[in-house]
């Protein structure tokens, strides 16, 4: 097809095992200059592992990596980055105590010479320019820990592109972004392409792939499947190759009609975050919440759940006024919450899949304070099977799972606590298309059993496909509540941009 000289980065016969689990098995990858090369595969297919091998964070068992003719197989990250590869990590790699600018240039201050002076003013200035060029409105001097997940993601992007790399790996860069920022990123990507920079792009959002990818490589269960120009794929063939079976309908049809009012939110306020939020959710209903990054959706959700209680306003559950000051209050009132930040609020890394899944409902599987191992284990196994969680066993620590599978564990935990109200904040973040269909099916099942559901998502198709009504937030204010009929991408965007 092409001569070897075209390839800027070549991977041959790469194999990597973790404690006996084969994550990658004899994988190849060839990247051309100036192309956007999508790497596709289910959760746990080995995409992130492959990328970590490329950047030098992991060492392969066998195989080789060559970049612009030099062998990088056993090189340290520092060397790899110096040579011109940079990476946006799936799990964000930020230092919370440092500022945005300090994070962006981390490892490259004064060329990384250990014993030279820092010039923070200069770093801040450069970071400010960079962010401005990118069209991102984040102060370079604010501490990283005060940023939202989406903002951190933008900083990570800034960090990767500021390296003047010739290959940029983007491992699910948009999982926390809403459409506006995705558009910004795509603009950046096309500029980079112009400059001959190659992008390795990983995402579970199919539309994105068909928008920007030039070439697609598919992995399945750690094995290389195929590499073809994007034009030769359509969504069905791609999914079939990834999953090994067909997925017909993504969004299931629901026939349930909303029942009685379950949760009422009245005039919920928190200074500087959101104000005057009022809405109701009914039994068997999915209320979508739409908004741009920083609109305050997550803040509203965590206020309802008591993670970060509101300053004022009222909550009613089944008509009764309740006060929720901590998550255990919310859980007591039958509310479940899947956070957008799974690493921070979602799971306990050292604990096993089983222990994480049962964590929020443990007393149910205990007698006199003693956990009944058998019933706990059985329940966890059923949930693992239902959600198709890929793990070596239910005893595998969650920290060893792929990102998407971690997300499934978090969802499984909340499902198991059988809440009557469930708040899902970006629930399919980083989840592959097959599993997404499963999760939508589960959400629908919950709905059918009368659970009231609040679905926060930055993916408009998901919101439109699932919701009965959609609440739109803009800069902390509620701008509309749209019925399924009224809601379209355009109307939602219209209200989301409203001031």
């Amino acid at each position, binding site marked *: 097809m092409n001569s070897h000289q075209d390839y800027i980065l070549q991977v041959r016969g790469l194999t990597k095992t973790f404690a006996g689990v084969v994550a990658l098995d004899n994988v190849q990858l060839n990247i051309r200059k100036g192309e956007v090369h999508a790497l596709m595969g289910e959760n746990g297919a080995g995409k992130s592992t492959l990328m970590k091998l490329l950047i030098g964070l992991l060492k392969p068992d066998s195989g080789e990596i060559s970049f612009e003719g030099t062998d990088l197989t056993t090189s340290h990250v520092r060397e790899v980055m110096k040579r011109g590869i940079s990476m946006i990590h799936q799990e964000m790699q930020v230092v919370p105590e440092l500022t945005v600018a300090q994070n962006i240039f981390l490892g490259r201050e004064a060329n990384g010479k250990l014993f030279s002076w820092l010039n923070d003013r200069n770093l801040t200035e450069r970071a400010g320019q960079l962010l401005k060029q990118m069209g991102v409105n984040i102060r370079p001097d604010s501490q990283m820990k005060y940023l939202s997940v989406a903002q951190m993601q933008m900083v990570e992007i800034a960090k990767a592109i500021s390296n003047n790399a010739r290959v940029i790996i983007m491992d699910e860069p948009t999982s926390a972004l809403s459409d506006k920022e995705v558009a910004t990123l795509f603009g950046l990507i096309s500029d980079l392409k112009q400059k001959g920079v190659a992008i390795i792009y990983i995402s579970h959002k199919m539309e994105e792939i068909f928008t920007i990818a030039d070439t697609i490589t598919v992995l399945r269960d750690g094995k290389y499947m195929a590499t073809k120009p994007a034009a030769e794929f359509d969504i069905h063939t791609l999914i079939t190759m990834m999953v090994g079976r067909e997925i017909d309908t993504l969004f299931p049809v629901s026939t349930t009609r909303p029942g009685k009012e379950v949760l009422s939110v009245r005039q919920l306020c928190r200074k500087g975050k959101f104000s005057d939020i009022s809405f109701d959710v009914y039994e068997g209903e999915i209320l979508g919440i739409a908004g741009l990054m920083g609109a305050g959706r997550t803040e509203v959700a965590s206020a309802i759940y008591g993670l970060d209680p509101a300053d004022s306003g009222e909550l009613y559950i089944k008509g009764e006024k309740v006060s929720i000051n901590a*998550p255990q209050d919310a859980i007591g009132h039958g509310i479940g919450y899947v956070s957008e930040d799974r690493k921070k609020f979602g799971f306990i890394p050292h604990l096993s899949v089983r222990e994480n899944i049962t964590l929020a409902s*443990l007393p149910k599987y205990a007698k006199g304070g003693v956990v009944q191992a058998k019933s706990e284990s059985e329940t966890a196994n059923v949930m693992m099977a239902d959600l198709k969680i890929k793990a070596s066993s239910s005893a595998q620590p969650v920290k060893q799972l792929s990102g998407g599978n971690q997300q499934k564990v978090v969802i499984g935990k909340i499902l198991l606590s059988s809440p009557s109200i469930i708040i899902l904040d970006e629930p399919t973040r980083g989840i592959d298309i097959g599993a997404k269909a499963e999760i939508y099916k589960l959400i629908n099942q919950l709905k059918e059993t009368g659970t009231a559901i609040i679905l926060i998502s930055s993916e408009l198709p998901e919101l439109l496909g699932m919701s009965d009504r959609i609440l739109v937030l803009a800069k902390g204010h509620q701008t509309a509540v749209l019925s399924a009929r009224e809601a379209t991408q355009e109307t939602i965007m219209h209200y989301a941009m409203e001031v």
Partner: protein
Amino acid sequence: MEKDSTLIKGGDYGGIRIRDAGKYVLLIVLVAICIALAMTTPRFFTVQNLMIIVTQVSINALLAFGVTFVIITGGIDLSIGSIVAVTGVVAASFAHPDTYPVIVPIGVGLLAGLLFGAFNGFVVTRTKVPPFIVTLGTMTIGRGLALILSKGRPVSNLSDSFNFIGGGKVLGVPTLIIILVVFFVVCTVILKKTVIGRYMYAVGGNEQAAKASGIQLSTVKMIVYTLCGGLAALAGILLTSRITTGQPNAGAGFELDAIAAAIIGGTSTAGGAGTMTGTLLGALLIGVISNGLDLLNVTSYYQQVVMGIIIIGAVVLDSLKHTKNG
């Protein structure tokens, strides 16, 4: 569908858990050291000597059990040595012959320890002061209290029944060994089999996520520090009984030994991981080395050097296994 189900290979009971695999290496190291000692000196491998080792280890092990709970939740307790002193002095004050029945000094001593621990827990949960500082503070306070209560003098002349608790034998087995075994089982059960035990791992593994799962952080921490105080009190009472006197300066430095036992045994200083078996092995390792060095009559200066090297070496060996796991 059948492809999917192979991904889930059964439950985990019955098998060796990944998290626990570490302790087997430590066990091997411990056994290896024992064999080496048995080959060097015939006096090592006798029932009597092994019993003495376990007896000597028991007080450190009880303290280490308590501190294991605390470290698993991501905390630390430096005050346990002082709790030993306070509870020892308190118990001894009620243990003079012909005053109270032996249950009184035990009860009062335990109560003092539980209260002390609860106070640690209270300050840790009600304020944002790091546990290191809270318990360093109460360590100093506790030492002062022990000295004030005893006026700086040992409290001696204790009843025989009190002295039996930590110094007696039942069917030829020292009471200390029996108590150690009982509390090892109790602590293991709490940690591994109960809801609160699971919550300890959760809180130490990811405090935010534990909170979001509806776990009341302050309750878990209160329980953990109180438990640790209670075990330290038990250690204090047993020590007092064993040496037949309540010493205001007893237990100084015990916290470091106990924390060392827990960490050698695989308890993660960052919280979220650890087992009682590991901690027991850690305590036994320290005890065996110390006994062995005495038996071999190694000069005291060199004892310290050898002790330090062996402890680091044991943990190095133990950690090699983890390296393979990536």
